[in-house]
């Protein structure tokens, strides 16, 4: 508790130094200046190596504090173990804050006779232009909250293993913490993608940059854990696997931080190279050692209680779900690190860029999407052939009809077509699940179908929240499929010139300069004409930041559910000295951001406590999967809120 308070104090002190323009502190000088808007002075805290590490400690302290307060009078035997693990992680980051990368170093120059002379700079160098965008204020906190949040399930998993807890208690205790961390990680990844889309000006949102990949790795293994955990809760299976998934997820969070900060792989996101990498390698080695030690000592307490009753069952679908997620995770990791390995083995560094990752991950993503639809249709333990036919018939039929319509309309890009069919299939399975459950409630209560669906969701928030998350992922996949049809055009333009892209005509109406407090913006006034009617004005900008002499872009986007018209002021042409407009037409991008909102909403629903036990519903759900439960009443087979 005391450590948490002191970390809060240190963090707020650094923020105070930013707000008070204290340019005697090196970190403040490097990441702020007098003209920096207050909004960005908050974000300056995590814009550099030292501050972001302190911010990491701060977020971890919030989690630790919350856990300690939540369980202050509970779990007396387990909490000491959990506390030690959390403290161990916290101590590592505090060591970095204090002895390796302190954000409180004063500006100093060597004076006579080995003395040091402290001084204060007149102004700071300012925040990197790329970071001066509203999402920069919320993207890193979300991502870091995801990274740090996985410390809690890790601490409980390791603590439970050390305490020789055989059951699923630790999973039950950490379910919400894992979901919170996963939600923040998802939000962080999507906000980062949106930030890249709106600021970097290359027309895309995901470039498979090593640091982007680093954020995806724990998300993939965390997603695998969130699914496989149900096997342990419902069937007492995969205990060893779950413990190791949590260990791996935590280690991938640390690995991600290591990749960002060590300079091992080159990235646009990476912090300056420093010796900090060896600290992370040491820490990861130590964590791995402790995990192996605890596992080998107490692995007998993790034996599965049940066995597989049938190959066609929910259990098998979860196994394959985990397989695909983990294969994607390892494939992304090995692709990210391949340049390093190629340099070790051949002496030549071979780049692995977006084309490689797309080729590898698109098929895996589609397989996963297929399993997202299949999973809910299979019952625990055993699914009969009749039930398979009954459950798959409609969703599959609807998906194929949608595919046929799309094909007839000229939708011929293979992966995008498969993606569309699968998206419809998954959405149909989820809607049918809601419909079937709601119908039972309606028959008993007489309420409308919508009210019944709402009641259904509130009675088993985890199950139906999970389905909402699946719908969100469907939207994200639809948006990603749209990228197959992206196109762009670039042109040097005089005032009055026009450029045609899709149904839009862009007319350059003018060019002006707009001085702002922190930068000067050169702005293009671009009129958008659609169907021969002026629709709107767009103002793509190029910004010159006075303190850093660096340039930045501000993309102008007209976003609809159908497509994004994305206009970039790409600079002045060296040949013609005319402004260059680079226009992109990116279909369906908005579905990705909307899908992200749905994913977060679904997770929040899943976090809510159940309104009441679903014992009545349990029997009603049985026909969906025709579950065969031996020796247990059906109401017990589907425990409240656990599906």
């Amino acid at each position, binding site marked *: 508790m005391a450590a948490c308070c002191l970390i809060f104090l240190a963090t707020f002190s650094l923020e105070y130094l930013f707000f008070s323009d204290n340019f005697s502190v090196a970190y403040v000088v490097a990441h702020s200046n007098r003209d920096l808007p207050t909004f960005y002075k908050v974000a300056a805290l995590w814009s550099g190596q030292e501050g972001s590490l302190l911010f990491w400690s701060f977020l971890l302290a919030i989690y630790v504090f919350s856990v300690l307060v939540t369980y202050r009078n509970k779990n007396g035997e387990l909490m000491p173990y959990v506390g030690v693990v959390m403290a161990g992680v916290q101590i590592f980051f505090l060591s970095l804050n204090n002895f390796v990368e302190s954000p409180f170093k004063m500006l100093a120059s060597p004076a006579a006779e080995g003395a040091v002379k402290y001084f204060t700079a007149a102004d700071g160098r300012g925040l990197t232009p790329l970071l001066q965008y509203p999402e920069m204020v919320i993207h890193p906190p979300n991502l870091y909250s995801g990274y740090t949040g996985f410390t809690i399930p890790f601490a409980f998993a390791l603590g439970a293993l050390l305490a020789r807890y055989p059951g699923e208690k630790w999973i039950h205790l950490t379910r919400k913490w894992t979901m919170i961390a996963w939600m923040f990680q998802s939000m962080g990844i999507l906000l980062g993608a949106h930030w890249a889309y709106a600021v970097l000006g290359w027309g895309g949102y995901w*470039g498979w940059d090593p640091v982007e990949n680093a954020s995806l790795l724990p998300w993939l293994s965390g997603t695998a854990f969130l699914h496989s955990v149900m096997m342990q809760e419902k069937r007492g299976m995969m205990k060893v696997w779950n413990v190791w998934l949590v260990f791996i997820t935590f280690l991938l969070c640390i690995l991600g931080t290591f990749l960002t900060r060590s300079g091992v792989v080159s990235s646009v996101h990476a912090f300056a190279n420093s010796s900090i990498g060896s600290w992370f390698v040491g820490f990861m080695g130590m964590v791995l050692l402790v995990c192996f030690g605890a596992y080998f000592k107490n692995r007998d307490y993790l034996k599965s209680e049940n066995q597989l009753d049938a190959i066609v069952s929910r259990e098998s679908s979860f196994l394959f779900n985990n397989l695909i997620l983990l294969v994607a995770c390892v494939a992304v990791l090995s692709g990210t690190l391949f340049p390093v390995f190629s340099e070790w083995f051949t002496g030549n560094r071979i780049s692995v860029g977006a084309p490689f990752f797309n080729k590898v991950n698109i098929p895996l993503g589609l397989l996963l999407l297929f399993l997202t639809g299949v999973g809910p249709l299979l019952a625990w333990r055993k699914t009969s052939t009749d039930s398979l036919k009954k459950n798959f018939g409609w969703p599959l039929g609807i998906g194929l009809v949608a595919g046929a319509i799309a094909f007839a309309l*000229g939708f011929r890009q293979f992966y995008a077509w498969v993606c569309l069919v699968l*998206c419809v299939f998954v959405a149909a399975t989820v809607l049918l699940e809601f419909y079937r459950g709601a119908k039972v409630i309606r028959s008993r209560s007489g309420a409308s179908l919508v009210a019944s669906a709402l009641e259904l969701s509130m009675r088993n928030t985890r199950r139906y929240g999970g389905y909402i998350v699946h719908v969100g992922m469907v939207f994200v996949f639809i948006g990603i499929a749209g990228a197959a049809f992206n196109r762009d055009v670039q042109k040097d333009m005089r005032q009055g010139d026009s450029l045609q892209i899709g149904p839009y005509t862009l007319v350059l109406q003018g060019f002006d300069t707009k001085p702002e407090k922190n930068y000067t913006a050169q702005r293009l006034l671009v009129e958008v004409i659609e169907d021969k009617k002026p629709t709107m004005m767009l103002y793509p900008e190029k910004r010159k930041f006075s303190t850093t002499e660096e340039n930045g872009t501000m993309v102008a986007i007209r976003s609809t559910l159908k497509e994004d018209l994305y206009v970039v002021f790409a600079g002045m042409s060296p040949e013609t000295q005319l402004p260059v407009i680079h226009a992109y037409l990116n279909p369906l991008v908005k579905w990705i951001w909307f899908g992200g909102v749905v994913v977060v909403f679904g997770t929040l629903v899943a976090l809510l406590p159940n309104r009441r036990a679903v014992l009545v519903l349990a029997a009603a759900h049985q026909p969906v999967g025709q579950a065969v439960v031996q020796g247990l009443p059906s109401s017990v087979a589907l425990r409240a809120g656990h599906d």
Partner: protein
Amino acid sequence: MTKARPIVALALLAMFATAPLLIAPVGAQQLSDRAKQIGGKFMCMCSCSQVLTECNHVGCTTSTAMLKELNVALSRGETEDAITQMFVQEFGTKVYAEPPKSGFSLVAWALPSIYLFLGTGVVIFVIYRWRKQAVPQTEPTGGAPGVSAELLERARARASRETQD
């Protein structure tokens, strides 16, 4: 159920059939020239970690020069292999956007398939083992080697007693 099913199905159809309608016209007109296709296989060497044809750094002279070089080579009628060799000689192997499918780089391409193959093998093995060891539910859960069933049950009861949400 029978009345509502067609309504749900129609709603779904209407909802998702709009997606191809929205983007089909765009796809139909999609064009790509040879320079864009070949340029997509190289990285921009301005250290932006982006593919050559996608680098949009304001004032990036590197990508401009590389694209110009590519256009000149194409206008000379050079093959894709010759252009690749030209860039590799100039910038080294870092210029590849994806590893070439030869030599050590083949490892990068092979690894995901190996992971999938091995992973599938493991999953099938696990399923087979679980199926083989399936026990009747009426039997008490078996103790693991080194830990008796009684001890495991005691530990489970202790965990249950000592923890609460």
